[in-house]
């Protein structure tokens, strides 16, 4: 993907965001933010019944083109994916996927959604552990 293609890719997702909006029955609602340029993203995560993969994911947010486009792109990337695979996703992989040449001066904007999704997964697992402990007691 050359620079212009990367820009078109980002603008398409910014102007026509996928999976934008609240998700009914989300297991986790996780807000995230980037103080560098004022971007905010909230991830809504619904985990599959077996507790091991993303059944549905959506986002809401405001901010710069890169942060909002990246959130849209991420939701497409991870729907149906095992949680363990998302654990392995590296911020650098995300930057490469978005187009390093375009986003390299705004790495925090580019990785905000991924970081927020990872935080959502951590919260999901902690909630599961807590629910298990409550059931035992």
């Amino acid at each position: 993907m050359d620079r212009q293609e990367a820009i078109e890719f980002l603008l398409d997702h910014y102007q026509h965001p996928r999976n934008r909006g609240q998700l009914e029955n989300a297991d986790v609602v996780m807000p995230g933010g980037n103080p560098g340029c004022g971007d905010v993203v909230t991830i809504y995560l619904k985990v599959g019944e077996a507790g091991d993969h993303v059944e549905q994911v959506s986002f809401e947010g405001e901010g710069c083109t890169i942060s909002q486009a990246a959130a849209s792109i991420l939701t497409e990337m991870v729907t149906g994916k095992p949680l363990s695979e998302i654990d392995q996703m590296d911020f650098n992989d995300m930057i490469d996927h978005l187009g390093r040449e375009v986003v390299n001066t705004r790495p925090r904007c580019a990785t905000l959604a991924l970081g927020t999704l990872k935080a959502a997964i951590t919260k999901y697992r902690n909630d599961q552990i807590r629910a298990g402990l409550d059931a035992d007691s």
Partner: protein
Amino acid sequence: MADYAHPEVLVDTNWVADHLNDPNVRLVESNEDILLYDQGHIPGAVKIDWVADLNDPVVRDYLDRERFEKLLSSKGISNDTTVVFYGDKNNWWATYALWVFKLFGHKDARILNGGRAKWIAEGRELTREVPNYPPAKYVAPERDDKTIRAFRDEVKEYIKKSGVALVDVRSPAEYSGERTHMPEYPQEGTLRGGHIPTAVSIPWAQAVREDSTFKSFEELQELYGSKGVTPDKDVIAYCRIGERSSHTWFVLKYLLGFPKVRNYDGSWTEWGNSVGVPIEKTYQG
């Protein structure tokens, strides 16, 4: 605009429309959102990004003389070019870029009053075509860090001085210490909240109207004068990283004509993280 102390530093959208093909004028778009320029910009405008172009990539500082010369040469800007900055967010980043240009003494730097928002609101032409200008010859002096830039230890001295004014241009909640960033923004970035002792609170955006143009000379004079920020004083403005305060610096220096105004770019991210510096906090929560 005629009542301002230096009306020549502001141009309006009609002026820009009339000078789109003027070889002595270079339009420079500087935004917070790095991809806005790619979505459409004023025909002939070049982009200057505050991160990639104006900051040092390693040290927390600005570019040096050599990089500045190369940057301007690559944009087809010579020492005699009239540079007109404009951008998003009430020209917040445009005034920041202008302030950096002034660190190197660029002679003729102006702001498009109303910025990108006003140009678009008037339905004027935007293009996605990126211009390619032949390299220009630019010779810059060493960066002047004394005249319009302030550092932490100088600010510390100002706390004890008379005849000076410190202006905190952040939001009231940041000033009080309730927040360490703007409302609706995440609360990160500094270890302590509050403001520099003796600083008065005048949020930067109070200097502009709803259409992003600057308020009148009289309105601005009242805004700052009512808080004791008057032209007889040495003034230092600060915010979080020196971007919002560059906007206030521009207003005080050029629109109100204050003779001595500096921007403390270390601002709250330096002050609020420094060990042992005094802080006032009015928030009692």
